[in-house]
């Protein structure tokens, strides 16, 4: 059975401290923005009323987490693993979102599939390219042609039927 490893005390303490500080900042920003939106009164709550309550609650809860973390009593986190593969996929997806409209679905998805396969240790270039092309063409045929979800043709616009 796969059981996630639990992070050690100091790592969890640091992680939860950072998370609580980020949440406190988000809570302050939300509460401040809500005040700007107008809170209204309990009789006539305005757009900022509910979000102000949420922001204030977030601050209180995050302060509690901060205290728990500093006391070493927070629980539930696990250590970060090797980040190289996830990072490559994130960068690949980021580039994909930037070039999708320009390059078109088939080309962009072939490249993305190639990146995923590379990350997964498929290192034979023709295999990577062939599988990438098959996946992108098959998904294009299924979603665009069969299910009618219009995907961007990009520079292959001229061969669209």
């Amino acid at each position: 059975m796969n059981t996630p490893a639990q992070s050690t005390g100091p790592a969890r303490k640091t992680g939860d401290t950072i998370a609580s500080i980020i949440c406190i900042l988000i809570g302050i920003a939300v509460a401040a923005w809500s005040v700007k939106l107008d809170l209204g009164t309990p009789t006539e709550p305005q757009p900022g009323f509910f979000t102000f309550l949420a922001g204030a609650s977030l601050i209180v809860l995050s302060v509690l987490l901060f205290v728990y973390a500093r006391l070493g009593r927070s629980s539930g986190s696990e250590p970060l693993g090797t980040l190289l593969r996830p990072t490559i996929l994130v960068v690949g997806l980021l580039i994909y979102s930037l070039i999708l409209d320009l390059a078109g679905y088939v080309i962009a998805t072939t490249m993305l599939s190639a990146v995923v396969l590379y990350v997964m240790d498929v290192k034979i270039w023709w295999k990577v390219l062939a599988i990438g092309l098959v996946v992108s063409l098959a998904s294009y045929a299924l979603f665009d042609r069969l299910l009618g979800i219009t995907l961007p043709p990009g520079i292959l616009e001229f061969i669209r039927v």
Partner: protein
Amino acid sequence: MDALVSLGHGFLVAITPVNILYGFLGAVLGTAIGVLPGLGPPATIAILLPITYKIPAVSAIIMLAGIYYGAMWGGSTTSILLNIPGEPASVVTCLDGYKMARQGRAGPALGIAAMGSFFGAIVSLMGLVLIAPILADFALKFGPPEYFSLVLLGLMMAIYLTEESVIKGLIMGVLGLILGSIGIDPAYGAERFTFNLVRLSGGLDFVVVGMGLFGISEVLINLEAPEVREVYKTSLKKLLPTREDWRHAWASVVRGSVLGSLIGVLPGGGAVISSFASYAVEKRVSKHPERFGSGIIEGVAGPETANNAAATSSFIPLLTLGIPGNLSIAMIFVAFMIHGIRPGPLLLQQHPDLFWGVIASMFIGNVILLALNLPLVGFWARLLKVPYKYLVVVIVVVCVMGAYSVNYAAFDVGAMLFFGIFGYFIRKGGFPAAPLILAMILGPILERSLQQSLMMSGGDPGIFFRRGISITLLSVGGLLVLKPIMLWLWKKRRGNV
């Protein structure tokens, strides 16, 4: 009697060729993702939501429901043959199921899991047929204060029942409420947290957030250290449990059906908790509790029955109250909204075809699953030989295609990626994702009912405490909040004595 007549009408809807096809597709997909570790029902439903735009609402819900309860069937296969649960509701099945496989009794373990699952689902469905109309009728009496209290209680229970760290669950719940408020405020038309981005005016799309939080983050976590799987070689012949097996297991199956049906109705309950609860109950009532974990059939029969019963009964709060109790049901809630249908007390009156059609399809779906799972268990086990490196390509591609198709914009692919990274870090930090998505979905209902309640009472929050149903629901929620404090005080007092 009326319910049975309506159910008969539901069968007429469910047995149309197109609905049978979608039900079959859902059952097959559900079993497949249940078998394959690394992609659970919420992620699969989230990924497939965009595809349902193009198909009728009844067919879409029938297919997505099939994925959810189908996954409960498939999950037991990997637990028994690999000691790896295909999805969380089958974690506890590993304890005795895998031991049975090692003793050469994989067949009876898989057999009792399938038959128990079928029995649990049918018992739970009968409960659904009888209780849902009564509950929907009762819920028509709910005003804004009752809805506010109900949604609040639902969120609290989801937080308390699913995760270890309550404070982290509460933080995620509040973050979900904030994310759910992004966009144009429906009451006053004011823009909230849009950063002047037109794309955010309509709010964050649940499909994009769901695919990021469950689909992409799951892939990122699996990429850290791709696992090596090895199927335990064992005889799959003689799948039917013997008379002796049944003598030991029948009571566990009955108890699992009742327990699962009850737990599934609770917000935050669902299949995972019911399987653990069933295992605990079986161990407690057994004359030989020390034998649990050594490969006894009761340890498989109870939990596998309970998780299927719970998966089915968790549709009750969705269909009658409009409250999704767990993540998979929350994703199905989104599918309703995509089709412009609001699940809740009025669903039965306004869309009886959908209401009864979906329930009837679950009867048919479970028969399909029984037929698919028992004779084809060898096929499902072989599915595990598909290398994850090829599977992950398909998951990523379907995710990006799904995100793009929401608004036909690459922006949404970027947004999905953002929530994928966010999901990765919150999971690593031990922050549960379920309260976030549930609160995001329920937040607008909570806000609207709070505003309406305060307007009704002239700003007096006492309205929530003067109405019977509301005060009852809030009291239960209050007990949940006070439970850790009471436990701490009790332990302290015992320590002092």
